[in-house]
């Protein structure tokens, strides 16, 4: 937002690009969970574009992004976050968009030293090089600490009006935002990607491990964001809805999985991911009963519908809390 504003102040025509990878935090969780219903449903990138008065193009990169997540050339950060590869990928996509649409250069809001992996003085040139953007990549917030780029050398942009921000402290950015009269903005980076979330990436690692290969499809990564995940056996896991919003969301997936729910008590919809043998059905039913209102009842009736659409009902004793090993929870 700030970098774009700095350019707009120089009379430069700016349009925004927002890449959708499938791992973006905003949107999905807010849309699904009842507890988030009081949070604004706005898309932050669109909101920023509107504040700035610029166009925003949201680009679906779900398929192409898989290779970044699965095979990051520069490795992962603390979790499964391939930040440097991700930045190179996104700037490359922006460069391609720039070339297709007749734009002259790319700006990003990067600041030298702000992030430990992709925004270091030594890695920022890697992004410029590997994206193919080279000196058409301008970082207005740190430009005066970096070698002049093509738009600066050509005089399209006045370098003297660019900034010299560095480091993790965001006070200079906040002061600049205040000077521009911006008082409402998205919280600073770090919380916008599920790949830096330890709980989420634990589930993703489990998916790859049990599948025997690093592969995912879009539904896989959507389902990792929803519900309580338990893996009682290596060959199956359960996804248990935590509220009505998640119940509705999982309902949309019920035909793709064996699913369970209590018919004698109020309780969650549960998807079983994997192949369940007969003895697994009983365990899955007892777990389903555990997470419903009948958890203290002697018996709970559970309906189980297979992927083939065949339904049976089992009367089961809910599993006790102390019968669920902590390592079943993903």
């Amino acid at each position, binding site marked *: 937002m700030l970098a774009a504003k700095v350019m707009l102040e120089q009379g430069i025509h700016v349009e925004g690009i*927002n890449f*959708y990878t499938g791992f*973006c935090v*905003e*949107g*999905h969780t*807010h*849309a*699904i969970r009842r507890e988030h219903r009081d949070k*604004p*449903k*706005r*898309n932050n*990138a*669109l*909101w920023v*574009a*509107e504040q700035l*008065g*610029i*166009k*925003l*193009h*949201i*680009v*679906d990169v779900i398929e192409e992004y898989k290779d970044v997540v699965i095979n990051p050339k520069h490795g992962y950060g603390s979790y499964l976050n391939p930040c440097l590869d991700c930045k190179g990928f996104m700037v490359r996509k922006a460069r391609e968009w720039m070339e297709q649409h007749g734009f002259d250069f790319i700006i990003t809001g990067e600041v030298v030293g702000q992030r430990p992996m992709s925004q270091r003085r030594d890695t920022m040139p890697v992004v410029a090089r590997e994206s193919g953007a080279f000196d058409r990549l301008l970082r207005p917030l740190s430009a005066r600490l970096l070698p002049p780029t093509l738009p600066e050398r050509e005089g399209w942009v006045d370098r003297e009006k660019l900034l010299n921000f560095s480091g993790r402290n965001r006070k200079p950015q906040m002061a600049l935002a205040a000077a521009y009269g911006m008082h409402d903005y998205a919280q600073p980076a770090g919380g916008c990607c599920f790949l830096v979330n330890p709980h989420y990436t634990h589930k993703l690692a489990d998916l790859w491990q049990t599948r025997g290969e690093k592969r995912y499809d879009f539904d896989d990564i*959507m389902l990792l964001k929803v519900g309580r995940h338990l893996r009682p056996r290596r060959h199956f896991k359960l996804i248990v809805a935590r509220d009505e919003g998640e119940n*509705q969301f999982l309902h*949309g997936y019920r035909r793709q999985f064996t699913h369970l729910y209590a018919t004698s008590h109020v309780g969650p919809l549960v998807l079983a991911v994997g192949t369940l043998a007969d003895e697994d059905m009983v365990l899955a039913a007892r777990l389903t009963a555990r997470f419903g209102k009948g958890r203290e009842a002697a018996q709970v009736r559970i309906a189980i519908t297979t992927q083939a659409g065949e339904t049976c009902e089992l009367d089961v004793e809910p599993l006790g809390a102390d019968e669920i090993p902590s390592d079943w929870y993903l």
Partner: protein
Amino acid sequence: MSHHELDARQLLCPLPVIRTQERVAMLQPGDTLTVRCTDRGALHDIPAWCRVHGHMVTATRREEAEITITVKVLGA
């Protein structure tokens, strides 16, 4: 001028906006597009996308879990 429909049900933010954007790119000024969604975020996002791109939302309707938004493509 022609009318078009887009089924974006079961898609979550920002996919309804992305699919709307892709479809609008194929339309002519004056055409209209009705988008059917189930993600409540679309009620904010599709009108916001229309505002920044200079298109017009001519109608929104919400019936139980389904949202219908009609967009008129303008010559932005």
